[in-house]
């Protein structure tokens, strides 16, 4: 049985978290992400889970690192400035391979920017905000129902690949109210599972990977004692700064993601079969892009939309294929030009790439995009 609701994207994220089996939220209030925290503060105790409002953004991710180590599925939610503060510990979670989902509902920046206005300015921060080299998975929902589904998907990836996953919303999607159909009972939704050790405690090596390059993770308190560190480490988790150990540690972090792009890279093709003018847009901007493509088609222009759902890792293969067929590629984004740089790299000169950027704290409208499509045909 399911029931229909009118719900915000932020609330749908919270519902998705509960459906995925999340039992712990730690965070710090920041607009426009607060409804995620407020919803989970109310819901978590009803499912035996815990919510804690920490003293700052850094503590908000620190506390979920600790809870994840005990085997819980965990979440924190924030927005641009708070996301910046969390970056050191996002890197920690990458190298220590601690599953978690970090929701970033983007707002205008830099700095305090415009708290209640939409932007997509954290695309590169999601990829490269923390220091050093590491892979990351970042997913971007384009509707309220997708906020629910992608939150569950984020936990699938996080638990399967033992990595932090970023759920990158923008203020449009976070605050938009839309129809959503939710199951009455989340028991029927499969709960993503973390790989547990199959060896006795005395044989357990916390960072010895299986063939899938992902090590099993024993919850603290389950009888397996192991060491967690942000230092480069060996298979036991003990610090080892040798060049060989450093390269081995970092290679595996990258390869466990890079070897599974077909599983991780999600996208939507809309009117793409014969598209000559291709719009690449994501999140709230994609909503205007659907309408612009429809309007262009009504005028006889062969327009289409490629919507990356997985922002990172970058869908390079898919975009290279588009570049081989398209006459024009328009990247529409609510920033000064971030994703476009990656698109240009993947297109590699095979088609002209045009940036449709808007960063004045207003959304890109269908009319603006249609005008851009018409100007290029």
């Amino acid at each position, binding site marked *: 049985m399911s029931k229909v609701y009118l719900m915000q994207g932020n609330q749908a994220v919270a519902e998705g978290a509960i459906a995925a089996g999340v039992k712990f939220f730690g965070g710090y209030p920041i607009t426009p992400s607060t409804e995620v925290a407020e919803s989970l503060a109310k819901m978590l105790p009803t499912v035996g889970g815990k919510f*804690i409002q920490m003293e700052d953004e850094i503590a*908000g991710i*620190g506390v979920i690192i*600790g809870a994840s*180590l*005990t085997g819980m599925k965990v979440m924190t939610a924030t927005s641009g400035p708070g996301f910046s503060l969390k970056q050191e510990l996002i890197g920690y979670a990458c190298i220590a391979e601690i599953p978690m989902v970090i929701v970033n509902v983007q707002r205008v920046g830099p700095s305090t920017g415009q708290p209640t206005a939409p932007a997509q300015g954290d695309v590169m921060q999601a990829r490269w905000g923390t220091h050093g080299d590491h892979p990351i998975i970042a997913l971007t929902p384009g509707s309220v129902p997708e906020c629910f589904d992608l939150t569950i998907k984020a936990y699938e990836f996080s638990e399967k690949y033992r990595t932090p996953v970023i759920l990158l919303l923008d203020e449009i999607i976070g605050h938009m109210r839309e129809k959503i159909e939710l199951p009455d009972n989340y028991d029927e939704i499969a709960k993503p599972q973390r790989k547990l050790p199959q060896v006795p405690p005395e044989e357990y090596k916390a960072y010895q990977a299986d063939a899938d390059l992902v090590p099993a993770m024993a919850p603290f*308190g389950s009888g397996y004692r192991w060491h967690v*560190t942000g230092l480069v480490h060996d298979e036991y988790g*003990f*610090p080892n700064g040798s060049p060989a150990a450093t390269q081995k540690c970092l290679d595996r972090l990258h390869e466990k993601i890079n070897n599974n792009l077909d599983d991780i890279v999600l996208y939507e093709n809309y009117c793409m079969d014969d598209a000559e003018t291709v719009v690449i847009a994501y999140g709230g901007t994609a909503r205007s892009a659907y309408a612009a493509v429809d309007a262009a088609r009504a005028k006889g222009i062969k327009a289409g939309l490629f919507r990356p759902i997985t922002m990172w890792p970058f869908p390079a293969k898919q975009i290279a294929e588009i570049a081989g067929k398209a006459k024009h590629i328009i990247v529409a984004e609510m920033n000064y030009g971030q994703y476009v740089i990656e698109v240009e790299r993947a297109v590699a000169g095979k088609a002209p790439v045009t940036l449709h950027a808007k960063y004045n704290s207003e959304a890109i409208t269908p009319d603006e995009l249609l005008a851009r499509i018409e100007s290029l045909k």
Partner: protein
Amino acid sequence: MEQIIDKYFRPGRLPHIWCPGCGNGIITGAIVKAVDKLALEKNDVAVVSGIGCSSRASGYLDFNTVHSAHGRALPVATGVKLGQPRLKVIVVTGDGDATAIGGNHFIHAARRNIDLTVVLFNNNIYGMTGGQYSPLTPANSKATTAPYGTVDRPFDVTELAKGAGATFVARSTTFHTQLLVDVIAQGIQHEGFSLIEAITACPISFGRQNKMGGAPDMMKWQKDRGVMLAAYEKMTDEQKEGKFPIGVLYKTEAPEYSAEYDKVIARVQKGAK
């Protein structure tokens, strides 16, 4: 002692990285002696540390251990405690780690009165980065970043903890080792936020800059200045000059955070049914 090393230290992880004369090994030894005294199961203990000399202790100990980020041991430990309340969670931190970069977490963990036992290794200096002043460096001391003496006034971290809401506050030194074991054991048993300030000598980065002599001289400094609280309270202000109280300095009972949250869950779930 050898038996305790075999029982609680990870095989193959020694020798430790600490400098000759450093007191950190004594404090780490006191932690395992306290665990041994309480006959806790190793699987039921988690040690969470931050970054710095002190915080390397977690890697040597055969418990569930986390060497977290600089200043962030307390949030991580809070998550471990809330995730698995059965665990006895011991936080190993230094003066810079706990009171500078981690100062906000320190006061708020104390305010919540969550059941963590914080053993704060106070060597009055940033040791790992080579002798810069910390919030617990005494005023007018020399440091590599205070070549003319510090202007900053230091915290009394026991008063800070008490003021913030800690319900068990104690102090000992690496000279007063029996007392150190005893107050750490009491802190672990106490249900609430416990702070144990463990005063330790850093002859290399603090002692040398401040002409305090070698490790034995710095131990003697601790012996001469640390006075049991009962005796300290009977001293005149003049006699107290240059001394500090040791032992259990403050103890009270208050609701413990993780237990209180469990009550919320029970209440909400009862209401939902």
